[in-house]
C-alpha cells in the first residue's frame, strides 16, 4: 500500500485507504473515489496536482490530498 503520489503514469490501482476528513471523503466518494474502487493514474509530474481517471472522468487531485490516499497495484 502506497500513497497515490508514489505511482507512475498508467498504473491501475485499487484504492485501499483514505486518510482525509469526512466531508472531503464524501466528495471523493461522489466522484467515485472510495475504498476498493479502481482508478488509473494519468499524469504524475512529481509536482503539482495528479491527474487520475475515476470511472469515465479525468479528475485533478491536489498533491497534498493525493499523499493521503493509498492504493495498491492490481
Amino acid at each position, binding site marked *: 500500500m502506497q500513497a497515490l503520489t508514489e505511482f507512475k503514469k498508467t498504473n491501475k490501482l485499487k484504492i485501499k485507504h483514505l486518510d482525509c476528513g469526512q466531508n*472531503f471523503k464524501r466528495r471523493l466518494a*461522489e466522484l*467515485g473515489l472510495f475504498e476498493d474502487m479502481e482508478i488509473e493514474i494519468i499524469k504524475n509530474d512529481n509536482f*503539482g496536482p495528479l491527474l487520475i481517471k475515476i470511472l469515465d472522468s479525468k*479528475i485533478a487531485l491536489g498533491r497534498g*490530498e493525493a499523499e493521503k490516499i493509498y492504493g495498491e497495484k492490481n
Partner: protein
Amino acid sequence: MVKKIDIKIGLIGNPNVGKSTLFNALTGAKQHVGNWPGKTIEKKEGEFSFEGKKIQLVDLPGSYSLTAYSEEETITSNFILQEKPDVVVQIIDAQNFVRNLFMTIQLIELGTPLVIALNMADLAEISGVSINIKELSRLLDIPVVVISARKQTGINNLLENVLKKRNTEKTKIKLTYGTEVNDELNKIKNFIKSKEKIGKRELNWLSLKLLEGDYRAEQNLTKKPYYFELKSLVQKSISHLQNVFGKDIITILANTRYGFIEGLARKVVNRKKIKQKIKFSEKFDDIAINKFLGIPLFLFIIFLMFQATFKLSEPIMGWIELLFGFLGNNVSSLLTNLGFSSLFISLINDGIIGGVGGILIFIPIIGILFLLIALLEDSGYMARVAYVMDKLMHKIGLHGKAFIPLILGFGCNVPAIMATRTLETKKDRLLSILINPFISCSARLPVYVLFVGAFFTAYQGLVIFSLYLLGIIVAILAGLIFKKFLFKDLSSPFVIELPPYRWPTFKGLFIHAWEKIWLFIKKAGTVILAFSVIIWALASLPAGVEYGSEQSWAGSLGKTVTPVFEPLGFGNWQSSVALIFGFVAKEVVVGTFGTLYGVDNIDSLVGTESLNNALQNDFTPLSAYAFMVFVLLYVPCMAVLAVVKKETGSWKWPLFMVVYTTGIAWIVAFVVYQGGKLLGLG
C-alpha cells in the same frame, strides 16, 4: 393577462453535462437571474409554453450530489423537499453514465418525481458505449429520454414525458442498502416518527443523512428537546455498522450505492472495444497541461484574448461613435430651436449624452471580452488552467480552483467575487475576495484606452497588457502577504474534473455574455446617469462660473485633494476629481475628464481629439502611465464593495479593502513616477 404557472420543473445534473445548454434551449431569452431566498447563490428561472401549459423551469445548482458539501447542494435538496416541484429532470452525460447515476440514486432516495434526460448518447456510441434506454427505464421505474441539448433533438419527447410523469405517481422504486443498514435506518426513522410529525419522504431522507453524518441535516435538529437522545442513537447505529463492516460509514454507503449502480450498469450498458483515434482532447491536453508548456500557453491565450477584444470591437465602436455624435449635434440644435435655456441644453448634452454615451461606447469591448471568457469557461479550458496554476496558487495559500475567480475578474470583479463561492472554506474565499480587485476589470479598460490613445498610440496593446500583468503581480504579492500575516494555516482540498473539450454553442455564449452586458447597461442607465448629472452640477455651479473651470465646485473639490497626487505626477485638479468620481464606477473617470475639459461628445472623432489634446497638456507619458497604474489599483468601485459586504457578511472587510488597495495604489504609482523620473523617462 398573465397565465398562472401550470407546471414547475427543476433541472439538475453534474457539472459539464449540458445542463445550461438544455436550459437555454428550453427557455431561450426568457430567463431571469435572481438569488435563492436568503442565500447568495444565483437562482436562474425561465418560463415557456408546451402543449398549452405554462411551464416554469428552475435551474438547480450543478453539483455532484445532494450531500451538503457546499451550500449549493443544500439548496437543491431543500428545493425538492420544500418547494415540491412537479417534476425534476436530471440530465445525464451518457459518456459518464456510472458517475452520473450516483446523483440519480440520491434523487431517488429523496423521493423525487424524476425524469432522466440522457444527453450525448451519440458521443458515447462513438467511443463504443451504448445504453439500453428501455431496460434502464424499466429497472429504475423512471422515464428515460434520449436528447441532444446541443442539436436540440428529443426535447419534445422529454417534455411529453415530463407532462405524463406529472400525472402519475411518484417514483416507486425502493433502494435497499442490505439488512444491516436498513435495520439501523429503521431504528432512526422510528425514533423520529415517535417525536415529530413528518412526511414520509422527508423522514427517509433525514434518517439517511443523519446516518451519513451530514452535519447540515443535524443542524436543523440541534434545538429540538430530543436532539441528544437522537444523536446518541445515530452514533450507536454508526459505530455498530462500522464494526460489522470494518469500514467507516461513508465508505459503506458509497459501496452499497455503487454496488447497486454497477449491477444496473451491467444490465443496461454495452461496452464495445473500439480502436479509437487519439482524440483532439488528449492531443490538446498534452500541451495544455504540460508541465513546461501549460503556463506559457495560458499566457499566450490570454494575450490573444485581449488582442482580439480590441481588434474586433474597434469597428463597432466606430459605429456607436457616429451614432452618438449625430445624436449630440441634433439634440442640441433641436433644443436650441425649441427655445430651451443654455443651462438645460448643457445638462442634456454635457451631462447626460456626454456622460452616459461616453460609457455605452465601451459595450463592444466589454461584450467581446465577456464572450471570450465565456468561451474559455464553456469549452472546458478553464479547468485546465486551474490544474496548471495549482502549484503557483499554493504559494499564495490558495489552490488552482481559486484561480478561476481571478480570471473572471478580468471581466468584472462583481461576478468574480461571487464565483468564489465554489471554494470550500471561508478562508479561501476571503483571501480570493481580498486580492480580486487588483485584477483589472473591463470597466478600467476605457480609462486605459483613453490614455493609450493620447500617449502610447504605437504600443497600445503592449501598454495595456503591462497593466493587466501588473494587476496580477500585485494580487500575488498581496496574497503572499496575507498568507503570511492573516491566514497562516489555510488549505482546502483541491479536486476538479477536467471535462472533455467541447465547442460551446453560440446561443449559450451569447446568453452568457448578454447577462453581463445587460448588467452594465443597467448600471449606465442608473448609477452612471445619476453621477453624470451630479458631476455636471458640480462642474456648472455655483451659477455663473465657466463650465468645468477651476472656480466651479468640482474645481475646488479637486484642488483640495490635489496635493496628495502631486508626488504621483498628476497634480492637476481634473484628475483628482476624476479619481474621486471613479469610486462610483471606474469608467466614470473617462466621462469626468470629458466633462471637466469641456468636451462634448467624447465619443465623436473630433471629441476624442480635443480630449486627447487636453490630456496631453496636463500629463506626460510617464505621469499618464502612473495615473493608469493608480486607476488599476485604487479603491474598487461601489458595486464591488457592496458585493464584498454581502459575501463576507460585514462592513469590516470592504472597509479594510478601501484602505489597503488605495494605500498600495499610491505606493506603486509613486514608485512608477519617481522611479521613471530618476531613469530620465519623465
